[in-house]
């Protein structure tokens, strides 16, 4: 295990006062900010003001909490994966069961928050970008429940890869727009959603699904997802009488990881480990792991962060078996947590994630999302180096039903 004392020594200044990020313009150190065309500035300012107004408003928070409980089914349980822990050999692995949420992933925590804000702002139309389709489904779901018009942008490659989720969104009354530009994946869907927003700014709320984008999105999405970590702290205390030694979560844009990390930032001696997608392997360059690869810092989608790019500053194509991790950047707060060494970032390959996927299916009767399988794969590696009475908490961010076609195809099985 890494020397925790050394870590805290190098961060003495950070740990003296409570963690309080970002600044007023959304900066996490040099990361984050508001890098958008002038046409979007006023809309972001309007959103920032409204969010500041409601983020501590008791009535708003009560409404949000009501939906989380009665519509989503929160709190999601924490489950001790005992059989799997024994099989792995080493630390005890606990799973935060975000896969049990309504719609099958953590994404709904955030879409409810933002949709309630859209309602308050009098916007009858919501738009979203989606990669794997989980955020699109979560947006379509809450839009249906609140009677909002919903348009979801999705790269045409992802439309093909994730057909069941496309159909789910349509069942829920959303319009799914396939995006044909660029690499036809998540980043291009985000570009297209931004273009829609700038054009329809007066009646439209853009529900971003991850802790990226211009301020206030990274902060706001983190705040709505923080329910994961807040519950975890309480549940771990109840279950084992203490906090885990490590919290592990997968990182694409980084919303599920930020949600579980955030309440733990000021808790000493809890390692925070973000797991990126190493795709075919870091050495092949075909991955989606800008933090692990030490990619250069740059500006994309409204914020400054670590970005996979070529020498000319054009964004390079990423690879991951998991569409939800297939993103060339990463939320700016993760970039900050990496730099101040409060969190560690690592990557696991497609193959390692697949092995963990099958292992959990067979040992625990849980089919995890391919995204979450990355976190599981790394937890497995860590557990082996730890003692039996040590504890790892993994954010099981989503269920794997959406991935059965991908998994079947890998095994050459036609469903």
């Amino acid at each position, binding site marked *: 295990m890494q020397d925790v004392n050394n870590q805290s020594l190098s961060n003495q200044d950070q740990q003296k006062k409570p963690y309080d990020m970002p600044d007023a313009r959304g900066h996490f150190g040099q990361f984050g900010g508001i*890098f958008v*065309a002038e046409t979007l500035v006023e809309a972001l300012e309007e959103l920032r003001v409204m969010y500041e107004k409601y983020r501590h408003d008791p009535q708003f928070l009560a409404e949000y909490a009501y939906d989380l409980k009665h519509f989503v089914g929160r709190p999601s349980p924490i489950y001790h994966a005992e059989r799997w822990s024994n099989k792995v050999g080493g630390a005890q692995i606990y799973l935060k069961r975000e896969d049990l949420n309504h719609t099958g992933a953590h994404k709904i925590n955030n879409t409810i928050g933002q949709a309630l804000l859209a309602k308050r702002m009098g916007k009858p139309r919501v738009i979203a970008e989606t990669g794997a389709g989980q955020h699109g489904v979560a947006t379509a779901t809450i839009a249906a429940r609140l009677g909002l018009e919903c348009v979801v942008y999705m790269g045409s490659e992802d439309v093909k890869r994730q057909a069941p989720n496309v159909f789910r969104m349509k069942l829920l009354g959303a319009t799914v727009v396939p995006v044909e530009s660029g690499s036809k994946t998540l980043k291009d869907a985000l570009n297209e959603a931004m273009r829609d927003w700038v*054009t329809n700014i007066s009646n439209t709320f853009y529900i971003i699904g991850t802790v990226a984008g211009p301020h206030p999105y990274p902060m706001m999405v983190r705040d709505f997802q923080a329910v994961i970590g807040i519950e975890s702290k309480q549940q771990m205390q109840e279950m084992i009488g203490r906090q885990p030694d490590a919290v592990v979560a997968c990182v694409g844009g980084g919303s599920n990881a930020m949600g579980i990390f955030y309440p733990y930032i000021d808790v000493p001696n809890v390692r925070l480990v973000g797991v990126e997608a190493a795709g075919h392997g870091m050495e092949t360059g075909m991955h989606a792991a800008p933090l692990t690869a030490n990619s250069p810092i*740059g*500006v994309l989608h409204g914020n400054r962060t670590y970005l996979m790019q070529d020498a000319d*500053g054009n964004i390079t194509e990423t690879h991951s078996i998991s569409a939800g991790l297939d993103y060339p950047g990463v939320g700016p707060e993760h970039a900050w947590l990496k730099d101040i060494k409060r969190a560690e970032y690592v990557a696991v390959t497609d193959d390692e994630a697949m092995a963990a996927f099958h292992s959990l299916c067979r040992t625990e009767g849980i089919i995890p999302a391919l995204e979450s399988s990355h976190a599981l794969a790394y937890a497995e590696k860590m557990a082996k180096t730890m003692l039996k009475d040590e504890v790892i908490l993994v954010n099981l961010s989503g269920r794997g039903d959406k991935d059965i076609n991908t998994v079947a195809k890998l095994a050459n099985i036609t469903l």
Partner: protein
Amino acid sequence: MSRIQSVFSALKANHKKALIPYITAGDPHPNHTVAILHTLVKNGADMIELGIPFSDPMADGPVIQRASERALVHKVGLSKVLQMVKEFRQTDTQTPIILMGYANPIEAMGADKFTQAAKDAGVDGVLTVDYPPEECKEFIASLRAAGMDSIFLLSPTSDVARVDLIVNQASGFLYYVSLKGVTGAANMDVAQVKARVAEIRSKTNLPIGVGFGVKDAATAKLVAEFADAIVVGSRMVVTIENSTEENLMHNISQLMQELRLAIDA
């Protein structure tokens, strides 16, 4: 006086308006770019906006995005764009060149290195679409120190305080985005644009250009009645997109002549 300022002064003395065509560098092929720049000047361009190709041009519509994609097939990055400007300057020392693009290619090169290279190449102004004034104070200062203008967008949604902030940071001219949307979007509401331009004019002596929705000569003519400059982007790029290698220069010349005639009328 910068080249951009000189051009505006001369036009003003002659009661004329500036015509500023936009093209993406490297579109349709890097070999054509310098020749296109000369063709634009020969047919009435007072200044030129030269787009830096970028993989994720969020503020642009499909037309200009496709232009970027065509240029990127030939790996036209920022340093190649600067080489093109340098080549253009070998025979044209008068026409201002404004680079328009996104922050990331500039940051990838390094802001200081870019400023020096742009100055050496003969660039006159820089419009970085996703650099609001709050996020680029040092960059503006270094451009200014190198004698280049920093051009900023003003949008229909910019409120009074923002207009004040931006006019104080801008130099060269101000670029008013005529509609809510991306480049090449729907038709503009000319009366509304006129009212907004008048409002901005009450706050600054800088020339005001209008763009993002100038689709044809008729619109250009209407806008020329109250703006100091007319920027034509998507319409120019569509013309390039729809041309063959044989009729490319002819089609560009024809469009430029129509626009010139309309705004001089």
